[in-house]
């Protein structure tokens, strides 16, 4: 017997703390657990503001039907925030509907819903402000009238918020090549007659465009300005080119607009208005990093309407720089411009033709491809995760702000450390100041679930929403702070913060059916309380090797000082959660109560979730 003990003890002592230990019994004795960790209640409060398909929007008289109230369209995407300096209300939210759907009252195609919000003084929560608009409509939610003004829109995806005054543009993604696809068998846009720009008192004010007659599909895929105060469309921006637009930003000079195209290749472009605040006339440029003379902006002749209809071929002719699907664009307080390049698995074949015709590859793609032992126009070139780019107008420098991933190793060697955070296919992007510190709000829209695009081992394909502290130099995915309140399986879009640093607004789009009402609809959500929390909690771990756990009440994560397997038991000693090889454990789904957390060597701590 004694010998047996010895050998057993030897096993126990010599076995390394390797991955994949079977060390958590289904039940444990909970009596001896002196250390107590307390996860305070989240300082954040979540509100559902606007539910697609349920909330009624006030419509204008459309297609011969009278004004009325009808269920809002779904597929929420971009959210525009427009401050109201003339009252104590916060301002207006403008929500995109990324779809193409016939609707007798809202209007065919995509669409946009606007509503006014205020902050309830005692609780800081958001309330919807009833309004009566200039056209007589009154209610809470208003349909932006496109059909009777600038013509229907389609797939309203991203958009632009002016840094100056919150003017809003909506972007029409899903590039169309013919009118039949817009018509979509009568389900899409039913008026397929050619479109004459600027008729019936709806002049765009853009000289080159007004009076032009174009095929109906050619009236899609523009940036479209709206007035959120009156819920009407103002103009399609015919002088910025017809592009698969996703995002853009109007800079503080009220003249310069940066925009990007969601395609491979996608181009980065710039419009500079002649007069501040008047975007009907000005010069258009496309980015070319290697332009002779150091100025990377090549002018596109936007007085030629054909150039505007065929922006992509003009960009190629001007040897513009090619990107792999540009999504949203934003700018920080210092005037640096950021945009998401969402990535596409093997883009080589998608831009090889344009490369041959003279367009040029962005330097970071050339460098990536070289590191992969290939060229960026080769089928072998991989771009699984995308990235956030940074452009500094002061220096014309363009660089990668944060690379998605962690990236795949180029050889068959295992990674040195197991990644706890993955940044994959960033899409929505905006800058936000909280308590004097600037963050990027980064949202994923996954192109797939393999190659390490999502955390391993759960089959959970949640698109995540992250905050990135802009003061962190050379950030990596490990520096991202996950906001843990997003419904599972949803595409998170539209993330934008209130200027007072208190509330984050975002949309949860086409969520997984597995979420209960209202999260099974497209919803606009407000999360308030960021100002009252230290968003980027820094853990004060001791240097020693003991089991240390810090709770982060904002992200609802437990953070540990080293990578470990951990199990959490309920107060009856029953195992309820097991996480392997992690430094962070998400406990957002655990009910408030008493738990025991145990690491892989059997160290236990009492955990109180409040």
């Amino acid at each position, binding site marked *: 017997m004694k010998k047996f*003990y010895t050998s*057993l003890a030897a*096993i126990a002592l010599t*076995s390394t*703390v*390797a991955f*994949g*230990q*079977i060390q958590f019994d289904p039940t444990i*004795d909970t009596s001896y657990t002196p250390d107590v960790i307390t996860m305070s209640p989240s300082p954040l409060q979540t509100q559902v503001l606007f539910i697609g*398909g*349920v909330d009624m929007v006030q419509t204008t008289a459309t297609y011969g039907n009278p004004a009325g109230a009808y269920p809002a369209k779904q597929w929420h995407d971009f959210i525009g925030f427009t401050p109201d300096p003339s009252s104590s209300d916060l301002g207006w939210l403008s929500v995109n509907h990324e779809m*193409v759907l016939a609707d007798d009252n809202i209007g065919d195609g995509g669409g946009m819903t606007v509503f006014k919000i205020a902050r309830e003084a005692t609780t800081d929560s958001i309330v919807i402000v009833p309004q009566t608009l200039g056209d007589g409509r009154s209610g809470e939610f208003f349909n932006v009238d496109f059909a009777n003004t600038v013509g229907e829109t389609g797939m309203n995806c991203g958009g632009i918020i002016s840094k100056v005054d919150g003017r809003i543009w909506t972007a029409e*993604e*899903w*590039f169309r090549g013919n009118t039949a696809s817009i018509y979509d*068998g*009568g389900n*899409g846009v039913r008026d397929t007659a050619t479109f004459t720009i600027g008729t019936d008192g709806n002049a765009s004010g853009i000289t080159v465009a007004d009076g032009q007659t174009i095929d109906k599909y050619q009236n899609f895929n523009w940036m479209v300005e709206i007035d959120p105060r009156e819920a009407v469309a103002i103009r399609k921006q015919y002088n910025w080119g017809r592009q698969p637009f*996703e995002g853009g930003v109007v800079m503080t000079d009220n003249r310069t607009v940066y925009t990007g195209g969601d*395609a491979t290749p996608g181009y980065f472009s710039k419009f500079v208005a002649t007069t501040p605040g008047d975007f009907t006339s000005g010069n258009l440029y496309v980015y070319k990093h290697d332009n002779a003379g150091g100025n990377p902006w090549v002018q596109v002749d936007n007085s030629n309407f054909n150039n505007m209809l065929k922006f992509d071929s003009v960009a190629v002719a001007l040897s513009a720089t090619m990107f792999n699907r540009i999504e949203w664009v934003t700018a920080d307080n210092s005037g640096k411009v950021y945009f998401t390049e969402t990535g*596409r698995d*093997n883009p080589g074949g998608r831009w090889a033709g344009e490369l041959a015709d003279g367009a040029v590859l962005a330097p970071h793609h050339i460098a990536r491809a070289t590191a992969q032992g290939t060229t960026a126009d080769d*089928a*072998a070139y991989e771009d699984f995760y995308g990235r956030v780019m940074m452009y500094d107008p002061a220096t014309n420098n363009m660089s990668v702000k944060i690379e998605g991933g962690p990236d795949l*190793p*180029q*050889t*068959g060697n*295992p*990674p040195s450390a*197991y990644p706890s955070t993955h940044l994959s*296919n960033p899409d929505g992007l905006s800058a936000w100041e909280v308590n004097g510190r600037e963050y990027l709000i980064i949202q994923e*829209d996954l*192109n*797939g679930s*393999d*190659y390490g695009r999502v955390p*391993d*081992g*759960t*089959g*959970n394909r*949640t698109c995540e929403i992250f905050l990135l502290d802009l003061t962190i130099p050379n950030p990596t995915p490990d520096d991202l702070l996950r906001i843990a309140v997003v419904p*599972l399986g949803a595409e998170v879009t539209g993330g934008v913060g209130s200027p007072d640093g208190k509330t984050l607004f975002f949309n949860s789009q086409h969520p*997984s*059916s*597995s*979420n*209960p*009402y*209202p999260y099974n*609809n497209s919803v606009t959500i407000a999360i308030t309380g960021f100002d009252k929390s230290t968003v980027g909690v820094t853990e004060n771990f001791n240097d020693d090797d003991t089991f240390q756990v810090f709770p982060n009440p904002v992200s609802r994560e437990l953070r540990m000082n080293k990578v470990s397997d951990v199990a959490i038991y309920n107060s009856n000693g029953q*195992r*309820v*959660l*097991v996480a392997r090889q992690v430094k962070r454990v998400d406990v957002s*789904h655990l009910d408030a109560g008493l738990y025991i957390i145990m690491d*892989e060597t*059997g160290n236990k701590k009492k955990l109180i979730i409040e």
Partner: protein
Amino acid sequence: MKTRKLISFALCIAFLAIYLSAFKSPVESPSKNIQKNYHNYLTEFDKEISNFLETTKNLQDSRSSIKKLQTDFLQLRREFKEVSFLLEYFAAQSTKDHINGAPLPRIERNAGQLNVFEPEGLQTIDEFVFSENPYAEKDALIKLTEKLKLHYSPIFRYEVGRLFSDREVFEAARFGIIRMYTLGVSGFDSPASKNSIEEAKIVIEEIFRTIKLYNPLLEARNSDVGEKLEIQFKNSIQYLATNNDFDSFNRLEFLKDHVNPIFKLLLEAQQALYIETIYEVTPAKQSNNYLATNLFAIDFINKYYYSSLNNTIDNEKVRELGRLLFFDPILSANNMRSCASCHNPKLAFTDGKKKSDAFDGNSSVSRNSPTIINAVYADKYFHDMRASVLDDQFEHVILSEDEFNTNYKEILAKLNASKEYRALFKEAFPQFGKQNLEKHTFKLALVAYVTSLSGFNSEFDQYVRGEIPAIAKEVERGYNIFMGKASCGTCHFAPTFNGTVPPLYQESESEVLGVPATTDTINAMIDSDLGRRGNKNPKEEVDFYYFSFKTPTIRNIALTAPYMHNGVYETLEEVVDFYDVGGGVGLGFEVPYQTLPFDNLSLTEQEKADLVSFMEALTDTTGLTAMPTELPKFENKPEWNNRPIGGLY
């Protein structure tokens, strides 16, 4: 002496128990060795792809060269099968996209524009390698193999570095068993080579080799599951070695005596080892019921995966309310039509008509009414797959001028006018407070009722589970033909026998069959219904969805005549004949994207009759068909209170 010995032994045990509980001694897991083996197999497969690429490049127009091509390809597939239970679990999506997906074009996910990828991977190569003249396909073979090599590269680089846990090993093994049976021995993933039985043996051998590494740990826990597994695995491998002919393989016997016992024992081993299950790792809804111990268990699939319903919302009151709504004609504009108008419980919730009657009472809607029993197991609804969640399906019926011809606003206003309905909603949905009679609760109640019409409990299911001792020989033969020679099971997947794809059952498929407009064989014409291509989803406007229709379940098919989306066939015999001749192409139509094999299935009359016998054994409506005995009253609308249960027409 004897007594003292006993005492000291007892003391030892007590000491040992104290020792174990005090130290919680970690038990070394074999997962590191499993990782090592995985690494080796990944590398072997990588090498074999390169070898096969050489073979394609050296292909000559000679019998020996073609023989070598086929031999080398089968070897490549063997290497894949060795790594497959782990690879197809860990890299599920990329393996399906690039290595072992169906030989069909597919739409790029999440792109800014519509983009189609041409068929690629082993199954596409399989069809060329085993075609009549592989040499004529030399260029295509080289290109496809180069593509395979290209796309395997990142999968390989990611997978060799993967760290994984014991839970994942067991999940991979159990999902591997489901995959091996539903997609392997059915011939799904070897469309032309049909080397499926040998490949199933390889998969089982690899799972055995892996799980065997846990035997010392099971012994340490005094569990005999390891021993049982070893006996079972050896038997199963022996069975596959001796019964290796694709057409004559007894798939039912294999299921009962091998697949299900292994599937059950693997779970028992995982539990005996104290290894956590997925439910302790993530709160996300799972499509499979991981604790199920039989592929034909009533709750093998989680019926709550497919809608916004969950087990905290679902209860008897909600289901009963849903049933009232289902049979209540108050839902239609004229108060005369209910869901049951086209979904009659006596006919397994169909209506016996070629195409269902329209709202106007004279004309028909455009398609045949499908059964609702087990309809929940899908991620797309309608023959053309236009609705993506069960919750959204009703809307199309409610708004359609040919069906209910109304809208939610009108329906909710009517329901609100009934004190009885208001009380029923309040009782069913207390968690929604004052918003208990709204669009979402209305939908939830209907979803709950439709979801309750599910589960596998036919005579055939009971036999598979061992609850009844015998089943008719013709049923057994019919099942074996269904899952083998006739390839029915490669689209109607077990155990749902619909198009929801194993082993996760998360995604519904549609197929292009080339169904004729009428039974007239002399002037035969393809039915003009565009199917999925006409579903008005801008992201599905692709040519390969022309004439594509959702794969329905064949459960309860004996009750659901006539058949096909247009009700063209009155009998199951006619349906079997249509498949036997090779679908629309076999009838002489131009169907460029037909997904059904064009060639004759060469079924004998006996085999056809057996197929029908099997399908008839899938009838199971017990406990599902009861109609309400009365409907809620409207206190201020006495004229509505005589409305017939289930509607007037």
